[in-house]
């Protein structure tokens, strides 16, 4: 344990970090589900002249894409910094 002034303080900090780690992992697991949902939405659009224009559809689909990439990058960055020096979190219950 790192040299902390109080014995309890670093422990609480670590636990909180582990907790955060788990929730980040949950978020990473949820991300493709969100993406799948968002990309399924076009199925409900009406086709033909009544539906959205192609440029609108393109904007939506690529917007989702960019959002997913950004969220994925953020989650993996956060996950990576949190995990350093802590070894592999192999003990988690897999899906």
């Amino acid at each position: 344990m790192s040299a902390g002034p109080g014995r309890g303080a670093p422990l609480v900090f670590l636990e909180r970090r582990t907790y955060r780690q788990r929730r980040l992992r949950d978020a990473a697991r949820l991300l493709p589900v969100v993406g799948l949902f968002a990309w399924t939405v076009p199925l409900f659009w009406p086709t033909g002249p009544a539906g959205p224009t192609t440029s609108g559809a393109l904007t939506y689909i690529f917007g989702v894409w960019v959002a997913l990439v950004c969220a994925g990058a953020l989650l993996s960055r956060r996950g990576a910094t949190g995990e350093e020096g802590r070894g592999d979190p192999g003990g988690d219950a897999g899906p």
Partner: protein
Amino acid sequence: MTLNALVAICLSYVVFLFAVAFVAERWAMRGRVRWLRSPIVYTLSLSIYCTAWTFYGAVGAAARSGLEYLAIYLGPSLVMIGWWWAVRKLVRIGRSQRITSIADLISSRYGKSNLLAIGVTVLAVVGTTPYIALQLQSVTLSFEVFGRDAPGAGAGEPQRLTAFWVAVGLALFTGLFGTRNLDANERHHGVVMAIAVEAVVKLAALLSVGIFVVWGLSGGVAETLARIDASALGSWQADGGRWAGITFLSAAAFLCLPRIFQVLVVEAGDDAHLRTASWAFPAYLMLMSLFVVPIAVVGLDLMPAGANPDLFVLTVPLSQGQEGLAVLSFLGGFSSATSMVIVAAIALSTMVSNHIVMPIWLRVTGDGASVSGDVRHVVLTARRVSIGCVVMLGYLYYSVSGGGGALAEIGLVSFAGVAQVLPAMLGGIFWRGATRVGAVAGLSTGFAIWLWTLFLPSIGAGGVISPEILAEGPWGLGWLRPQALFGIAGMDPLLHAILWSMSLNALAFFTGSVASFPTPLERLQGAQFVNVFQHSAGPRSWTGGVAQTEDLMVMAQRILGAEDALALFAREARRQGVRGDLPDPSPDFLETLERELAGSVGAATAHAMVGQIVGGASVSVEDLMAVADESAQLLEYSARLEAQSAELSRTAAQLRDANRKLTRLSVQKDAFLSQISHELRTPMTSIRAFSEILRDGGTIGDGDQTRFASIIHDEAVRLTRLLDDLLDLSVLENGQVSLNLREGTLGALLDRAVAAASAGEGGATLRIRRDHAAEDVRLVTDLDRLTQVFINLVSNAGKYCDAQRPELHIRVGRAEGRLIVDFLDNGSGIAPEARDTIFEKFSRVADQKAGGAGLGLAICRQIMARLGGDIRYLPGRSGAAFRVELPHEVALAAQ
């Protein structure tokens, strides 16, 4: 631009790629792998997903059917963004089990079954061959675009020649850089680097064309969007079923395509690579598809009505006189095609050589695995020949099919084929109940349905399936129509095929798994795969002790090379703590060795090779029971050890006791020696003194003379008695005494003993309690000797009992058929530490007390031993207690 200039550019690009691969290999050899193994290179290598099909075909698909092409990119994006679900587990399994290909994964999971490996290999070859043909076709087509105006270029033979030379070049490159090392788990740095460069080239090419189209031709983003909406593609018209179906199919294919599996799993680094690729690869795909619609729309606008939309990426810049851009675009397409063919050839050749060629070769040569001689060249040759075969098979398909059909459709057919592996793969890594039978059932069902409903019809109307069968079904069986199974007609053929093949595949897989019972090895592997994060240790699949380490060494040398094999064996020997270079063939070692070999020749072959030497080719229930037996034996053995150690400590305690006794005896003996010399000396002194007085005469009265004489006599008697005792004891100890058997009663013996003891000591003070009725036992024994024992005991009680009113209780009884006579007094008894020496010679309870020589009890013990009985001290009584035991027959014989 002339065709020759293009060929020159093309060749110099190829030379550049060779140089990149060569330099990368050089760097890797010098250990500068840090940069080569960066996450970016890993991500770029994944881009072989984007083949010439997506490079050219996406624009074509967009021109034909709007935004549907996007679905092909959405599936892989979702898979990579969701890497926590499946990809991470696949990569971990790939690393811990040293998986070399997707066929190896499936075979390894289902009990290292070679049948499954062959099945998946065949499926992969069948599914990939059209795809390779497609790449050759796209390169040829793009050449044709440039060569159209050039003199001497036409259709037919020159096209085929182009395709042929491209194929030869690719086979050469792959053979050179794809088989540098035997261990498929080691990264092919050269190839990976070349692919990464190609990934950059194709992205740059497509982005350049897109930027040219948007800003150069349309005048900006807003204008481009307006142009899109005004075009024929202006409104949303995607077919929902195809959208969902293709998304699913591309996601499935991304996991199952042999070439993707090669870069995604086999050449994977670690979690950090995956972490970066999880968002960077979707970003790459997004960029690749970003300008597809604008290019398609502008192409439809600018190009004449009959132009092939698949080639807009090339023809739009060309039509605007942008030759440089067109060449870049051409190189992008060329890169897409070549990188796909290279990796696919590596992946397929690994599968073919490991799962088909090597098993056959091992069987045909028939000399077993333990013959010396390096077989690495055999494996490498097999792999190189396989590469050539795979590429040439693609060329053959291309030249036979004549290059027909829309590019995208061939790609999807191929996707649907390899996706048949998905149920067995996902089931294998998430469900422990998945069995080999289920996997075989699912794979063959899916493969058959795919062949019938999609692959054979896709070859064309003039191909295997005639139009009549297509319309009526085989033998008039309408429900078997290839594109309307079970009478459900009117569906999109692709969707129809995916629906039936995947659902029936999954159903057969599940049913087969549930209904069958896995072999022990399957169950072990299943646990290994499903719980890969819990325990990374391998399965204990070998029972050791049977294999000969030297044979294993010989075999390992053939696969790994002499030095690597020696190093491995030495390392294992050190780990086991064995002297020398040959480790014991422990299960641990065998498993490590097998895994090392699996990295080179695949799990099934490695298992078979080790099996040839070890004995049983797989773990049977008997083996498992033997292991269980072994552990039971170990338990028993350790229990025995414990018992032995307990016995040892008991013996040690006894030895310590004996030692204590000896020490005490030695001390006592010293004391006795001084005592006995004193005992002998005292009477001798008085005898001498009085005899000297008598001899010298003088004034001695008669009374005195008589008294002196009697003193001399008494002392002589005492001496004699002492000497008698010593003599008696030595006679008894030497066993020279002969018994004088006579008949008498116990009571009479005791009477005599009590009388003699009382007379000797003159001690009327000792009260003796007896039970005369019980003493009426007839005996046949040496009565005199037995009386001697009794006398000794009674007189001892008289001498040593320290009670106020000394009392001796003589009790007669029987125990276990033996006659027992107890002598119990009411004194303070004998101290515990003295009890074990009282029966020894020269032993006396207290020095100086009562003046005995300390031989009485020793004589008693010798006598009782002669008579077949025993004399013991009874502990736990308040006073001294001696028990005399007489044997059964002594008492019985008289009755």
